């Protein structure tokens, strides 16, 4: 076997250029596969994290009655005792914070033009513990209200404001039905503009405080949802597990409530991400198959160039399996070099993506809008050693198969047929 290895290795070295081109094809295929996976994993993670941080939180709680009709955002069927729920949540070590929200449908206007938007009634202090909206605001995230005055401040999505030609410090007219179905409208001062990258928030949402909504919407402290922030983990599956467990806990403690985990809320997003990933993997698979064809071609050329050599070796006493191994080893050597170089390239790409990331620059907003989900201004990759190992093993398997098939053909020839081969 040592001699077989020696002949195979020397044959690879003899055709350096051919072997190098094949190995480079493979290197590019594997490197791209690793890099793309890192980027996709990073995008997935960023999308889900942004969704948790900006809109859905880790666990969202409604009452079952509200849940049945929540698409129309009714101002009824609120959580009876939000303080009790908050206290229960606070007792769990996985819970970082919880906050209350009430959503409603409203019309916003600049006195001339009007558009519909989703209003979010929040407690700015507790909301900032669960969501990161505050980090994306230009102006203030409410700050302190002037004592003795009616609170009429609003933080609007930047795109929504832009659509109406409004800017920070302008007044917007918000018109909505109160809890008791009366129509109310009032001027609100824009104290902050949100630019989160999430098209739903930026283009169709605004936020007001409970102190203003209790008066403006006759809310009377109605809380239609509670949002919970959980301890962050490095991997998504641990976060999913925690969310499921906390949701279960709430569901058991408060049978009238319907808690949703972020993975339930982001079900369609996660499905979209999966489909996107499958297609990307298909493309990468094609690249790897091209590399496989390269190896097969390289070994096949080697086989045809050396058919007579096979005849000689067989005449000298080489067995069929030794001939097979000789050519298969050639494929493996090329595959090994290609896979190793591919892994190195992939690690370098990952290193760049994880450390520096890809800056979307000014296009971040349009990318978020077209993708329908929030991205930051920089896309970061993630380390995925499982993918790196898979890519290397895949490369080697492909090389093994690509080398084995032509090798078997060569070995099947009789010595006389091989010696006659011109």
């Amino acid at each position, binding site marked *: 076997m040592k*001699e077989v290895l020696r*002949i195979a290795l020397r*044959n690879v070295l003899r055709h350096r250029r051919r072997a190098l081109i094949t190995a480079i094809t493979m290197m590019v295929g594997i490197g791209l596969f690793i890099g793309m996976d890192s980027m996709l994993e990073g995008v997935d993670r960023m999308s889900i994290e942004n969704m948790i941080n900006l809109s859905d939180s880790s666990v969202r709680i409604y009452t079952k009655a509200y849940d049945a009709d929540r698409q129309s955002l009714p101002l009824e069927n609120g959580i009876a005792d939000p303080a009790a729920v908050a206290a229960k949540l606070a007792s769990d070590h996985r819970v970082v914070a919880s906050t209350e929200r009430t959503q409603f449908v409203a019309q916003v206007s600049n006195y001339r033009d009007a558009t519909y938007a989703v209003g979010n009634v929040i407690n700015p202090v507790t909301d900032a513990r669960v969501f990161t909206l505050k980090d994306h605001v230009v102006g203030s995230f409410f700050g302190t209200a002037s004592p003795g005055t009616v609170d009429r401040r609003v933080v609007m999505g930047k795109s929504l404001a832009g659509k109406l030609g409004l800017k920070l410090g302008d007044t917007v007219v918000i018109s909505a039905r109160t809890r008791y179905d009366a129509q109310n409208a009032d001027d609100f001062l824009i104290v902050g503009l949100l630019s989160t990258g999430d098209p739903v928030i930026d283009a169709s949402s605004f936020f007001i405080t409970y102190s203003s909504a209790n008066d403006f919407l006759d809310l009377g402290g109605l809380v239609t949802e509670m949002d919970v922030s959980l301890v962050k983990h490095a991997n998504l599956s641990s976060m999913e597990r925690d969310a499921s467990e906390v949701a279960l806990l709430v569901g058991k403690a408060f049978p009238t409530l319907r808690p949703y985990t972020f993975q339930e809320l982001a079900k369609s997003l996660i499905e979209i991400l999966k489909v996107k990933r499958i297609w990307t993997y298909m493309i990468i698979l094609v690249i790897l198959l091209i590399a496989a064809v390269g190896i097969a071609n390289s070994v096949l050329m080697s086989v045809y160039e050396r058919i007579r050599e096979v*005849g000689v070796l067989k*005449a*000298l*006493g080489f067995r069929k399996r030794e001939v097979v191994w000789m050519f298969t080893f050639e494929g493996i050597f090329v595959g090994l070099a290609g896979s190793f170089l591919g892994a190195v390239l992939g690690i370098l790409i990952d290193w760049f993506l994880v450390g520096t990331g890809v800056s979307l620059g000014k296009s971040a907003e349009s990318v978020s809008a077209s993708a329908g989900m929030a991205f930051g201004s920089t896309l970061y990759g993630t380390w995925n050693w499982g993918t790196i190992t898979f890519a290397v093993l895949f490369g080697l398997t492909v090389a093994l198969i690509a080398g084995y098939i032509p090798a078997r053909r060569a070995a099947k020839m009789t010595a006389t047929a091989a010696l006659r081969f011109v």
Partner: protein
Amino acid sequence: MGIILKLEGVKKVYQKAERSVEALRGIDLSINRGELVAVVGPSGSGKTTLLNIIGCLDLPTSGNVIYDGRELGSMNEKELAIYRKENISFIFQSYNLIPVLTVTENVELPMVIERRYGRKEMREKAMEILSAVGLAEMADRFPRELSGGQEQRVAIARALVKDPIVVLADEPTANLDSHTAEEIVELMEKMNEARETTFVFSTHDSLVQRHAHRVVTIRDGLIKADDAITERRVEV
């Protein structure tokens, strides 16, 4: 000297598309141990087929090949491979050295395959035979660095290194100029005398035939003449 190889009514039919080609049409031939036998005849007469059948590279369609009293037709594939490995060596027209191996490594190859010798012993035997064929100083070169004559010498060294009983050489001088061809046959003659190795070689070259103990003439798959060279010389 006793008979080492005996062919009885050997026929070989090749099936080419829907046409049958009779390469050998009933060969009866006995070869003695230590003989230097030249098989001559025009192209397509069946010389190579005969050598391939003797060397077990090909099987006869009918008839028997008896080696040292044992019928090869009764052997299975594995036994035939062992027979070939232990008793027969080949020299090819195009030398067919392994281009990625050095001269020494090429010569060592049959011993490596046989797995009978240690590393040191293999090297010693290879160097000994390379000295015998006058190529000791070329030991570390690769085939591409040698002339045609030198390559064929290496091929002879490779064929002889494991002390085979029979060496089969298919047109060993066909690619060489007459002077080098003469040298190669002289070398085979020398090795035949020194080691008592049986040589069976096919050739077109009348100069080369002169060195043989016996010339077997084959035409259209049949032996037309089987002459001891001394008798032929007397006739001439």
